[in-house]
């Protein structure tokens, strides 16, 4: 089967290297996660070669960058199809792939092999000090490189949309991507006043993951649902607007839930609590959206795995971002839980549910077509992919449950008692060891799931002739 019957525009295939590299970085992220999981238990594991903070910045930076590669791949795949024209410049997309990939690898190598203060000195941190803040540990040249890649990417997909059909899907996606790029500029603003520093840092982090990234997630989900269910575009796009309206109406002022205890004024205790209570709503609607559209489907798409990812991402995002987020978002609760293991519990499930899973959802949908396999991988390959889905998802649920347990005990021992009766940080950590062991075992489960998932790509090359899913007639959406 020629791949040209599988996707409409030749230039969509530039998505493939983005997806492949994203998954490679994902593996790296999990390996470093496991290292840190062990360091929580054996405190000097790999010290001084790989101190905890270095493993952590590798883990978090790999996460963010693999998701960015995933979003870009998703955009390169779906925007030409939605806009109904070829991508403006496939060559630029491939060039930017290499620029971003090489810059990313060099940055990770810098973290691993150069002491951080020396890396800062070598890379011009004294010209403009942007390093050393969580998630923004990148040297200045890397940050500039990210801006260059983002601008080239936006230009490329932007021109494609401007000259082509503007659907709700690609307009919302473009808004999210433009917002992502513009908000990243705050990464260059590092005030001398720590409170002000923190205030604007959240313009990048919160307004990304609880703002514009939700636009990106929702539009990719809408696209996949249009493709696999055949439900009328008008219905799906209406739901999309409802979801993103709820996301921004709740999430913009919801930023205040990060402003409770950093030196910002007390009005934020009220604004942040009230608006972030609304933040689970868009995720709840996404669950209804995914399940309802699949329930009302007008075709039996052979890619069952993609449908699972679509439903799964909505549910896990709702649980991780929505429910777990709500658990610690009210100021009187957060007063006791702020900066402890409950935060880590929420963060892991939220990121996995919302963003890791939506990227795996679009990969699940697009990759069989990009690889010339068909509308879906073989049934055997889909089974293996679903093993990966369930192992990763259930492992993540357990990681979250164990860290929540750790967090509750931590708050009980360290935060609730008065000074003098409260246990110290280090003594408290010793009391949490059981939870950390269980978390680590769950992390190994997650890695096994990831391996199953990756093996499913290999499996789909070994299809039996009689195991092929039934090809669809030409799509009309």
């Amino acid at each position, binding site marked *: 089967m020629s791949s040209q019957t599988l996707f409409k525009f030749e230039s969509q295939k530039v998505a493939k290297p983005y997806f492949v590299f994203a998954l490679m970085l994902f593996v790296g992220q999990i390996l470093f996660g496991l290292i840190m999981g062990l360091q929580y238990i054996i405190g000097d594991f790999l010290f001084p070669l790989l101190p905890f903070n270095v493993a952590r910045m590798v883990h978090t930076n790999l996460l963010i960058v693999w998701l960015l590669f995933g979003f870009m791949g998703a955009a390169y795949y779906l925007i030409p199809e939605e806009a109904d024209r070829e991508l403006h410049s496939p060559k630029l997309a491939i060039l930017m792939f290499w620029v971003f990939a090489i810059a990313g690898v060099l940055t990770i190598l810098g973290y691993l092999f150069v002491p951080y203060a020396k890396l*800062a000195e070598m890379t011009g941190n004294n010209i403009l000090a942007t390093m050393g803040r*969580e998630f923004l*540990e990148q040297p200045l040249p890397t940050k500039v490189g990210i801006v260059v890649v983002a601008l080239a990417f936006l230009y490329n997909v932007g021109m494609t949309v401007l000259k082509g059909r503007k659907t709700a899907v690609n307009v919302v996606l473009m808004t999210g991507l433009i917002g992502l790029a513009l908000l990243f500029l705050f990464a260059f603003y590092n005030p*001398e006043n*720590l409170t002000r520093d923190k205030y604007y840092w959240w313009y990048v982090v919160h307004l990304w993951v609880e703002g514009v990234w939700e636009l990106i997630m929702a539009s990719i989900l809408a696209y996949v649902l249009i493709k696999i269910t055949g439900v009328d575009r008008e219905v799906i796009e209406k739901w999309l607007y409802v979801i993103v309206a709820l996301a921004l*109406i709740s999430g913009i*002022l919801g930023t205040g839930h990060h402003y409770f205890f950093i030196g910002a004024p007390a009005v934020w205790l009220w604004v942040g609590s009230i608006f972030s209570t609304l933040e689970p709503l868009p995720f709840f609607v996404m669950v209804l959206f995914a399940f309802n559209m699949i329930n009302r489907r007008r075709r039996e798409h052979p890619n069952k795995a993609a449908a699972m990812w679509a439903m799964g991402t909505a549910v896990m995002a709702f649980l991780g971002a929505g429910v777990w987020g709500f658990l610690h978002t009210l100021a009187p609760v957060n007063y006791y839980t*702020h900066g402890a293991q409950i935060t*880590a519990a929420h963060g892991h499930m939220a990121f996995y549910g919302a963003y890791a899973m939506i990227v795996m959802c679009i990969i699940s949908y697009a990759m069989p077509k990009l690889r010339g396999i068909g509308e879906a991988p073989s049934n055997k390959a889909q089974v293996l992919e679903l093993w990966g889905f369930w192992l990763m998802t259930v492992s993540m649920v357990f990681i979250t449950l164990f860290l929540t347990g750790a967090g509750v005990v931590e708050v009980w021992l360290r935060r609730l008692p008065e000074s003098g009766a409260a246990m*110290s940080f280090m003594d408290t950590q010793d009391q949490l060891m059981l939870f950390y062991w269980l978390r680590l075992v769950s992390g190994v489960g997650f890695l096994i799931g990831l391996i199953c998932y990756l093996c499913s790509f290999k499996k789909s090359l070994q299809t039996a002739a009689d195991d092929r899913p039934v090809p669809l007639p030409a799509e009309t959406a």
Partner: protein
Amino acid sequence: MSETFTKGMARNIYYGGSLFFILVFLALAYHTEKTIPERTNADQLTEAVVRGKHVYESNNCSGCHSLLGEGAYFAPELGNVFHRRGGEDGFKFFLPAWMKAQPTGVPGRRQMPQFNLTDQQLSDLTEFLEWTAKINTNNWPPNIEG
């Protein structure tokens, strides 16, 4: 239902709602900026404090520690370590000695690297953490342990 609530209405709520709340957000940013100097004792934000923040960042202290609850959760909260380790009289002696003594080398214990900071850097870091401890954080953390 689908006739009364159209895609166009949903889109307008999205645009209108987002714009409205962006404007409110900007107004609250203006209000926040106005309160920051007093809440953070900006008059005590000396050159040494600024240099100390730079030491904190360029050695990636946030990679293990939390500061006002933000950062990593591998090592103790440092927003109030000034109060926890000696305060006005004692912290300026505690911190340089502590930093020079790392790593502890206790088997199995979480280790802090030796950052080889100069005496000037140690002094600046001390100033930074003292200034941080005096920010009005709405009474956070709940107790001395951070």
